[in-house]
């Protein structure tokens, strides 16, 4: 890995100042992403996975703020940039796709106008050139007859098609990084399959890196090169997909995989992680997973450090599992 990473996040801390005091929503989040790679960022609601995306994009609203850490895009630290420089970069070198495409799309503007707007915000090109680029982007995400579709309004598209348009807009300025926040969660299985196929193809063709945020381990398992698992604002395990899923070392990762119905024999009781996700304002001391963990000991009252399991595979745990996980499929 001699090349500079497209995106490198180091020891990112995001905090919210609330009436009850400062809540640390992200703590020591680090990862890097190289050209054309897809990283799955997996966690349950409230684990901080979307917040990681917002922090990188500079989309945090007060009282939230990035309190520490570095976010490097091709070696440039975003946190040392002026707000204007960040604005120039957002939508240009990095883009975000949301779960609900109507968050991206303006319901009263034609698709063509919205797409051209996204190009003109960052580059001076003639309208004809811009239109050509829009057409190419729509074709790339698999929208049939892009010429006609450019003149349509968002409500004339189905849910899956809207999500494709949102992806096409994200692709317009050939960004280095796309952050996709649960983009297929609301879609049907057959449509989700179509979108995943397009994303995989696009990364291979353009070298764009993708952070795919999801709660569904099975979706990223077929898509991502790397997986990072989040719990209560920390990345508890990360590594190559096959490593993380085949040799899950953190008790939480293992619990998550074992509780997926498809990973269990039919009609057998599912493995269940006891308890619930703690509120970020009342995190237990030390390892946040300690009260729900079957392996916890007195040592877990201290915060665990990140330790390597194998090449490129790390875990934040005092008692990581060492043996592979057998799934009954």
């Amino acid at each position: 890995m001699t090349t500079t990473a497209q995106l490198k996040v180091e020891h990112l801390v995001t905090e919210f100042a609330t009436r009850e005091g400062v809540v640390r929503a992200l703590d020591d989040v680090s990862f890097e992403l190289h050209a054309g790679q897809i990283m799955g960022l997996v966690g349950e609601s409230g684990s901080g996975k979307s917040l990681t995306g917002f922090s990188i994009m500079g989309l945090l609203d007060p009282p939230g703020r990035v309190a520490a850490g570095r976010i490097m895009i091709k070696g440039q630290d975003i946190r040392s940039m002026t707000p204007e420089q960040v604005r120039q970069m957002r939508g240009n070198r990095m883009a975000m796709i949301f779960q609900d495409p109507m968050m991206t799309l303006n319901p009263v503007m034609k698709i063509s106008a919205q797409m051209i707007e996204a190009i003109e915000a960052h580059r001076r090109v003639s309208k004809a050139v811009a239109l050509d680029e829009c057409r190419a982007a729509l074709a790339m995400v698999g929208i049939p007859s892009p010429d006609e579709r450019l003149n349509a309004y968002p409500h004339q598209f189905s849910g899956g098609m809207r999500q494709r348009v949102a992806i096409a807009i994200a692709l317009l300025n050939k960004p280095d990084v796309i952050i996709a926040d649960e983009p297929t969660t609301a879609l049907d299985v057959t449509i989700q399959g179509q979108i995943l196929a397009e994303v995989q193809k696009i990364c291979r063709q353009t070298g764009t890196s993708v952070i795919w945020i999801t709660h569904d381990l099975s979706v990223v398992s077929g898509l991502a090169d790397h997986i990072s698992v989040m719990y209560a604002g920390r990345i508890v395990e990360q590594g190559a997909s096959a490593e993380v899923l085949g040799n899950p070392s953190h008790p939480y990762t293992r619990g998550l995989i074992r509780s997926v119905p498809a990973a269990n024999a039919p009609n057998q009781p599912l493995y269940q992680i006891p308890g619930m996700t703690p509120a970020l304002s009342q995190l237990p001391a030390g390892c946040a997973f300690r009260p729900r963990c079957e392996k916890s000991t007195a040592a877990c009252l201290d915060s665990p450090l990140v330790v390597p399991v194998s090449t490129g595979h790390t875990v934040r745990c005092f008692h990581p599992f060492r043996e592979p996980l057998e799934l009954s499929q």
Partner: protein
Amino acid sequence: MSEQKPLLALDGITKRFGQSVDPLHRLLNKLGAKHQDQYVYAVNDVSLSVASKEVVGLVGESGCGKSTLGRLAVGLLEPDAGKRFWRGQAVAEMSPTEQRRVRLAVQMIFQDPYASLNPRMRAVDIVTEAPLQHQLISARDKKEFAISLFAKVGLAPEMMERFAHQFSGGQRSRLGIARALAVNPEFLVCDEAVAALDVSIQAQVLNLFMQLRADLDLTYLFISHDLGVVRHLADRVVIMYLGRIVEEGTGAEIFGHANHPYTKALLSEMPVIRLERKTYHPVAGEIPSPMHPPTGCHFHPRCPQALARCASEVPLLREVASGHRSACHLNDMQ
């Protein structure tokens, strides 16, 4: 299943939504205009039977009519055609007293427990309202009854005085289940009951469903878009596409030897945890609007193996193996 009378059966059920031509346009029609009634056939000539203590999984994508079929099974909707049978007896022909008994025996659990729980009622009142109304318990026994219900679904008795918003997502699901169980039902229709839950919580609720099935001899119609969940729970699986059943069979048959091209497409896109990267080969095309469904087999415009007759002729459900029926013209070719 033919030896034994099914617990609940739907026979040739059709439910359409829409509007008939209003008086003005009817008048215009007399002058030669051609305005027609517009209907969406949410459920079109569907027959389904569920045996006692069976778990039937009903699978399909959005707009296929699975929720409508669920509501028809519970009796929340009246069918436009077809009959509903309870233990072999047509419900529509029963006396009002008997009908009320059936209504209590069939209960529904909704996807969004938040939307289906009254925000101004305390948990204890939510679960005891129905049994009090139907005089299954007396007001004196209310507390005790709620405590035993709470214990059944794994809620702490201290939570009884809380309001719905004070529960977490998983606890709200449990509360919705407790409310359904309060009237001693025999049959539960679960409409996407675990879809909104996180994986670790979903596992807890699915385990509860299986536990209750064993403890209370319950029968389930489990509606879900999630094949993994259905494979885990269901004895028998029914696949719907645009208002029709396209395939049904035992879990082992459907997941082992799927017959219909649509089922095969669904299964190949079903996300499972795998260790190698997947190359996706998705079915092309979108789910057509139920307003204007394709002629013949509804799936033919997206079907990779479509024949000429698929566009004109509706395929019928036919047995392809023991206890396994599929509606596909390709089965005539062999």
